């Protein structure tokens, strides 16, 4: 299926140049003109522009990249990095919530439980997955899967990509706060290795519910924040127009979070972001996930739990220098 690429505002000059390259290629196909040299020259220019732009993305630009509709989502990573995925459904209490997907899978030959918030990639799948905004049932399903992993000694990998938990009437009535709190509790408690990867947006408590893990990885242009820049701006600046300023102030980039000791390492993205080269980001995450798991596998369950606690109890002991 062919998808029209989406370009972000700050990518416009790059998009224009790429458009011209396409035009030239089209011309050369028809007229037999030899313009390959020109195309190569222009392609080099595109690469240079991408390199400059993406090496100094502002926090707000990173927010836009993290939300890019073409960016790979949880199910894409599950399909690319894991084998024999068996999708498991339901919280055994109320319902099924597709905003959180999960199940058993094999990673490099070993069984694991993988859980992720899934945003969907087109209108139909976005609706099915509620744009990645989970309800209590989603968090309770996650708890169930984490306990399942613990029961069978399987490592847990979570893929975080959500703007936040769903703010809905039913979600509140069925205990959204309790579901998130309990999810954090279970995440902290399980006596198996746990690794979280922030692959896109790490939105507030809805992300935290799946990220209280032994190791937290984060993609180079992903963001992770206590509140969305828009939400923060509308409260503190009294206008959502200041979202860009708020994004700066919140220190939500992977680079900031690494300095603050909130995440353990950054997974490099391909030139121009994960959405420009899926195979490359799959490989990069694979190369980061394997050692992260290897470091934990084989450790005693009680030790894993104690280390996790110790790590989170230290959070906030140091600020930005």
């Amino acid at each position, binding site marked *: 299926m062919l998808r029209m690429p989406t370009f972000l505002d700050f990518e416009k000059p790059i998009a224009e140049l790429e458009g011209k390259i396409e035009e030239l290629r089209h011309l050369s196909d028809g007229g037999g003109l030899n313009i390959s040299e020109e195309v190569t020259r222009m392609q080099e220019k595109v690469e240079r522009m991408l390199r400059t732009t993406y090496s100094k993305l502002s926090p707000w630009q990173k927010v836009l990249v993290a939300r890019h509709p073409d960016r790979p989502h949880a199910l894409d990573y599950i399909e690319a990095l894991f084998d024999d995925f068996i999708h498991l459904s339901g919280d055994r209490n109320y319902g099924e919530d597709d905003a959180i997907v999960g199940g058993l899978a094999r990673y490099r030959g070993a069984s694991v439980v993988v859980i992720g918030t899934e945003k969907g990639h087109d209108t139909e799948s976005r609706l099915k997955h509620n744009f990645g905004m989970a309800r209590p049932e989603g968090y309770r399903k996650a708890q169930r899967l984490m306990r399942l992993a613990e029961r069978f000694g399987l490592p847990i990998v979570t893929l975080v990509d959500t703007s936040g938990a769903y703010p809905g009437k039913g979600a509140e009535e069925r205990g959204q706060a309790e579901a*998130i*709190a309990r999810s954090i509790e279970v995440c902290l408690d399980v006596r198996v290795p746990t690794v979280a990867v922030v692959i896109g947006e790490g939105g507030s408590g809805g992300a935290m519910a799946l990220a209280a893990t032994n190791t937290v990885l984060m993609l180079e242009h992903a963001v992770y924040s206590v509140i969305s820049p828009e939400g923060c701006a509308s409260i503190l600046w009294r206008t959502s127009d200041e979202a860009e300023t708020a994004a700066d102030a*919140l220190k939500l980039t992977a680079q900031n979070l690494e300095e603050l000791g909130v995440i353990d390492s950054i997974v490099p993205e391909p030139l121009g972001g994960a959405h420009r080269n899926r195979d490359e980001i799959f490989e990069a995450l694979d190369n980061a996930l394997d050692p992260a798991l290897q470091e934990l596998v084989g450790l005693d369950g009680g030790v894993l739990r104690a280390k996790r606690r110790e790590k989170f109890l230290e959070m*906030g002991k140091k600020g930005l220098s």
Partner: protein
Amino acid sequence: MSWLDNIMRPKIRGLGSREAPDNLWVKCDSCGQMIFHRELEANHKVCNHCGHHLRISANERLTFLFDDGEFTVIEQPETVTDPLKFRDRKRYSDRLKEAQSKTGTGKSDAIIVAHGKIGGLPAVIAVFDFKFMGGSMGIAVGEAFVSAARLATLQEAPLIAIPASGGARMQEGILSLMQMPRTVIAVEEVKEAGLPVIVLLTDPTTGGVSASFAMLGDIAIAEPGAVIGFAGKRVIEDTIRENLPEGFQSAEYLLEHGMVDMVVPRGELRDTIARLIRHLIRPKATAEVVALPRTREALPDASSAAPADG
């Protein structure tokens, strides 16, 4: 010197309400009627016309929950202030100073930890002060909450957590989000010591505070009319594009939906908590799961056992 020496250095605070009202009459923010301030004080700041529970300070809360209004406030360890050098329309560091002078709590933040007796039994209370930046939870609050949990464990006393908070302290960014797992761990530590965690949800308990320790108590009590929930009402209305029912996210609404054990008027709180503690505190607390004896002798003789079905 260990952190314990630090937190164990008690400091007695002045008791009673600091703020003398400028005029003798207070307007109820629910029914709008005027209440004589002495009557309001005697009634634990509950409106005598409509029963509305006015918001009260952390200090007032401690005064009427502990026996004879006597308690010892625990000095908190110092934490990083303004870790992100945050600035919105004002500097966060200035906002902090303003809040401190407004609440008159010196260098402390939006939480007070104290110990004393409730119904004659020792108890540790961690209470939020909504007047301090909306009771928002940042590093200092998280740190104080962890020390409250450890004090409870040390004293073999129950932990009474009393949130009054709009959620996370935005000005501390991701580090405020990280106080969610920290406070969850704190609660777990108390539970593992076999001690009860009682949460008293007061107005308001929302956002990251509601979605962490506040929902993990062994017992959840709510004050009448308190707003308790994860997402803000306006955010929900904007998302679902419909108006929410009357009393949505109120203590009574939560009770109806199975989210709290009870809704208790302010005047009955101390007695209720004292009764709960008496049930839950045991002479020798233990949380360990003990294996039952499984020897051959302990099992019934198969031949003399009753038929399995019939």
